[in-house]
């Protein structure tokens, strides 16, 4: 492929793949059977130049390829405003999304492709980008992807190759330390926000290491693990974690630890409560907005939201905006299940293809936002210049209705 016999686009892609192999010290490449691409989100001219160069050179993906969020909500035009940092966001952002679709990637535009049909199996080698998707593929599905980023993702999709390194290898997947949460009160695990808090703690401890968590209940579901992984990946360099008795590679602790006597960190309720407080940058009780669905809300999460709104007869208060971000595929399913119209009638706004902390969607003048996502809480203050409160779904819905927040500890 490097010699240009498959075209200049493939040759460029292969130079990037082999360049990465050199950096990773990999002597071989591995064949990957699926790709998930993050390069379709606009960060400036360089990313668009890269995609358009590949299109111009005739490059096409050769494996099933999904796309992560873009800069625009193509289903609800006008959702995203242009901003000072990227005055060309709406045009260049659109051009970038189009370029990736032109190369044959599916227009999924979601950070949770695993919620539709991109679900590689146990041990399957793939090339996935985007930190929460990487953690989910490795941890929850037991597939094998390294922490791929922009540029490499499309090059892996074009060549069907990635360096045989990192999480593609057995030895990199073993846990270097253990987190024990057996002493945490069981009721905490009823809401995924506490899984996000745990993820934030895991990320802080892990750096780029693999941790194994013991003591999570068997009721832990994919939405919980999604929240945990996303927070861990944004708080640190986590690409894989194990939850003993829950995730597929960890039926027992012994199956996943790298050595006989691993370091063990015990967390109790007080640790989780303190960590949650640490993720809240707002003081006072006023809120201007709530934002749910980071990573993109699943069908079960939208259903849980609809049920909570109905149970409490909540209507979003005047002066408050309430967003739910999800994938267009899940939105279609939610609509078919009659979940969308009642939520819109209650004042909720759906966002697809993109996310509320990445691009200007929240109204100007928004100062304090409540979320149930550890990932959103981590990135939004820096990205948007706002303050954040992290709470459970029940607390977020109550806050949307009242315009004020009161947290149950």
């Amino acid at each position: 492929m490097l010699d240009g016999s498959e075209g200049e686009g493939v040759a460029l892609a292969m130079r990037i793949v082999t360049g990465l192999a050199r950096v990773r010290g990999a002597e071989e490449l591995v064949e990957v059977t699926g790709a998930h691409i993050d390069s379709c989100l606009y960060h400036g001219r360089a990313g668009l130049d890269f995609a358009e160069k590949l299109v111009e050179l005739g490059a096409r993906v050769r494996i099933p390829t999904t796309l992560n969020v873009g800069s625009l909500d193509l289903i609800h035009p006008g959702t995203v405003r242009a901003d000072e940092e990227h005055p060309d966001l709406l045009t260049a952002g659109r051009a970038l999304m189009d370029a990736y679709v032109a190369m044959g990637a599916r227009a999924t535009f979601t950070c949770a492709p695993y919620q539709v049909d991109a679900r590689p199996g146990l041990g399957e080698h793939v090339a996935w980008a985007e930190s929460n998707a990487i953690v989910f593929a490795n941890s929850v599905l037991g597939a094998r992807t390294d922490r791929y980023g922009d540029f490499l993702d499309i090059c892996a999709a074009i060549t069907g190759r990635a360096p045989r390194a990192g999480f593609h290898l057995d030895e990199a997947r073993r846990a270097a330390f253990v987190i024990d949460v057996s002493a945490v009160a069981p009721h905490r695990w009823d809401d995924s926000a506490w899984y996000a808090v745990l993820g934030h703690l895991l990320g802080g401890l892990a750096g780029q290491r693999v941790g194994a968590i013991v003591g999570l209940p068997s009721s832990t579901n994919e939405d919980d693990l999604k929240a945990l992984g996303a927070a861990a990946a944004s708080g640190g360099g986590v690409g894989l974690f194990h939850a003993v008795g829950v995730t597929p590679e960890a039926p027992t602790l012994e199956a996943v630890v790298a050595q006989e006597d691993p370091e063990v960190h015990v967390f109790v309720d007080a640790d989780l409560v303190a960590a949650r407080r640490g993720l809240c940058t707002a003081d006072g009780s006023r809120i201007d907005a709530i934002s749910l669905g980071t990573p993109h809300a699943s069908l079960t999460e939208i259903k849980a939201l609809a049920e909570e709104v109905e149970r409490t007869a909540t209507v979003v208060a005047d002066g408050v905006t309430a967003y739910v971000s999800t994938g267009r595929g899940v939105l279609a399913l939610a609509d078919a299940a009659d979940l969308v119209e009642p939520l819109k009638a209650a004042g909720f706004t759906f966002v697809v293809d993109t996310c509320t902390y990445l691009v200007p969607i929240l109204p100007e003048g928004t100062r304090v936002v409540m979320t149930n996502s550890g990932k959103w809480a981590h990135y939004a203050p820096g990205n948007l210049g706002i303050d954040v409160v992290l709470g459970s779904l029940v607390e977020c819905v109550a806050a949307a209705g009242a315009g004020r927040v009161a947290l149950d500890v």
Partner: protein
Amino acid sequence: MSELAAVALTRGEGRGPVVRLAEPVSFWGGVDLHGTIVDHFHPDVGTSLTGCVLVMSGGRGSSSASSVLAELIRTGKGPVAIVLEEGDAILALGAMVADELYGIVMPVVESGRLGDRLMTGDMVTVVSDIINGRASITL
């Protein structure tokens, strides 16, 4: 003058004042398009990385850092070199793509613990050769 040996991850030469960070920064979400650290949780928040030799222990955070770095290189707002105690593929890729698209080279090198000798303000030259895999950091 002293010279530290390092491993070459991307090619090129860069000279500038060291900015040594207390902990790694994620270029995506943590550094704005002016090259300034904006991560509220980062101890060095507010520091400009433009024109510096960035020294940190490793990479961090979102895989979108490659795009942000490539864009900073394109506009001249990024570091002139990056020295990592432990190499990071995400940063190396950003530099590789800027090289492919624009011919602008920005060396990314792996120094191991030798990087501890570099202090903020030191004027250094980083030279990185990916053919032989060797790089040097000269104070």
